């Protein structure tokens, strides 16, 4: 949490390069370790979703349990743009972000003067409203079946274009989006805005008494977080070639909460990234062994909450700290490592 230390914060950090290297080579090794190309697409999309979600949960301290609504708004918007307006990647993603931000901004008007359990309960209620509308508003959303046959528009970059209809190409596209989101959010959480929302999380009253409009900061964090969720949702509609109400359900909203917590979103910027990877690996690895994989994942979640609420990133930080203090007190190499997973 102490990034205001004297060192400058760069646009791109070592951890980012490691992540991009691991993910960037994934299509080369995924199949040899028993994974498949589409899994990478899913993981990366949910990393984007979870990173945006953690801006709210980990950085602003606001537990939203209805964030699937904004992911879903993004998915529907992307589909509707393709069906009703034009087959266009950029227009689709723009629509996804805009609709989710608008929905988020509206909901945030009702939530931003709340916190804690009241905030959580109201976020569930609003999430359910969106989910219900998605199911009932047949003419627009396609009801329970959702929007089908959403095309995957090509990636048009002016001088040429790149088809995204195969999963490897799509993977590199969503990875590029993830890179942009990570660099942007990393910058944001270390900006004055990022410092203020973390202050709101720690002490709302004092933040107001030093002169900040707490309501507006919470509103902004919520809206940005919803916009990022919408971006992820738009990519998901493209990946799935459909948009359906299930992603807005309470349990889909619960998944992103669990990912973020298991990964360690409260103590690390990287928590949601780790958590999303673990979630999908657990789904596929446990899922290949047992149909009740979600039960086991749920138990794992409970174990983390009970024994290591700071999640995987927290456990990692502890381990590095213990190692370095074992070697020599205040060892600089160790301390630098420990700082790596910090926000």
């Amino acid at each position, binding site marked *: 949490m102490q990034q205001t230390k004297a060192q400058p914060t760069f646009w791109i950090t070592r951890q980012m390069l490691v992540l991009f290297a691991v993910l960037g080579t994934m299509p080369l090794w995924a199949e040899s370790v028993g994974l498949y190309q589409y899994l990478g697409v899913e993981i990366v999309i949910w990393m984007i979703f979870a990173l945006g979600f953690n801006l709210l949960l980990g950085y602003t301290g606001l537990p939203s349990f209805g964030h699937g609504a904004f992911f879903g708004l993004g998915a529907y918007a992307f589909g509707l743009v393709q069906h009703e307006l034009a087959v266009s990647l950029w227009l689709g993603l723009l629509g996804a972000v805009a609709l989710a931000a608008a929905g988020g901004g509206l909901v945030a008007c009702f939530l931003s003067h709340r916190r804690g359990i009241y905030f959580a309960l109201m976020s569930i209620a609003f999430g359910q409203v969106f989910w219900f509308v998605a199911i009932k508003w047949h003419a627009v959303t396609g009801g329970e079946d959702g929007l089908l046959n959403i095309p995957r528009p090509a990636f048009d970059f002016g001088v040429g274009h790149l088809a995204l209809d195969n999963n490897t190409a799509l993977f590199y596209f969503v990875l590029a989006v993830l890179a942009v989101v990570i660099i942007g959010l990393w910058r944001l959480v270390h900006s004055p805005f990022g410092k*203020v929302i973390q*202050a709101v999380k720690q002490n709302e009253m*004092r933040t107001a008494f030093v*002169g*900040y409009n707490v309501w507006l900061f919470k509103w902004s964090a919520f809206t940005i977080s919803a916009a990022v969720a919408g971006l992820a949702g738009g990519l998901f509609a493209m990946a799935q070639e459909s948009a359906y109400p299930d992603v807005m359900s309470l349990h889909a909203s619960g998944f992103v909460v669990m990912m973020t917590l298991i990964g360690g979103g409260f103590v690390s910027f990287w928590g949601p990234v780790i958590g999303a990877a673990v979630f999908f690996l657990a789904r596929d690895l446990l899922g290949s062994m047992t149909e009740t994989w979600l039960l086991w994942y749920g138990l794992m979640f409970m174990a983390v909450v009970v024994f290591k609420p700071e999640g995987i990133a927290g456990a990692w930080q502890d381990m590095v700290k213990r190692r370095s203090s074992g070697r020599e007190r205040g060892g600089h190499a160790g301390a630098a490592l420990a700082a790596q997973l910090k926000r």
Partner: protein
Amino acid sequence: MALFEARHIHKRFGDQVVLEDISLAFQEGTMNGIMGPNGAGKTTCFNVLTGRFSPERGSVSFAGADITGLKPREIARRGIARSFQIMNLFDDYSAIENVLIAVPEVREKGFNMVQQLNGGSSAMDKAAEVLRKVGLAGREQENAAALSYGERRALEIAVALAAEPRLLFLDEPTSGLGAEGTARLFDLIAELKESYTIVAIEHDMAFLFGLADRISVIHWGQVIAQGTPDELRANKWVQASNLGKLA
């Protein structure tokens, strides 16, 4: 005209009247003490004057403008800062981050989402300077939660000072400090007094009588006595309530 003036403030919680009819005026450049027994309504009075609660009746003005019923952030931005009786810090932030967040320069950039707050910037220098002033030099990177009680008290004041206020409210700054800590705080406030208008709630009479230009005694939600330390020593209320003996 007084820099800050509260007129006929009335505040109740449910049917408990906490502030009956409080009028106070603080002149620019003075140090003002507020004393009174526990539960007298002193903290509530601060809360009303700094915007946490709005009064049922009465008005508050600062620097010639009516600020009655304004929100804490609006009052803060006009140049009024306060510390809290029960510590109110950003516990996961380092000492310097606690102060930095209150520096006006940072506050004006609150919605900047791109720029980074780096060492060497003028905001950082100001924050470090405030920490030095309250005696926390060398402790900049320590987490607020890891500081000792006395250091946290000092940080509580530093966060208020960082705002570069015209008027500073301190709610029981010595509470919980030992003799040594109190003596150090005495020196600090004696120094701050030179550049700020200060209002301090304080139980430690020797402390207050040694520093304040004027003192108001609040009891049962009213100002029962007011004056210079010398006048108060002679006051029958103060003597009757045994407060004068300590001074």
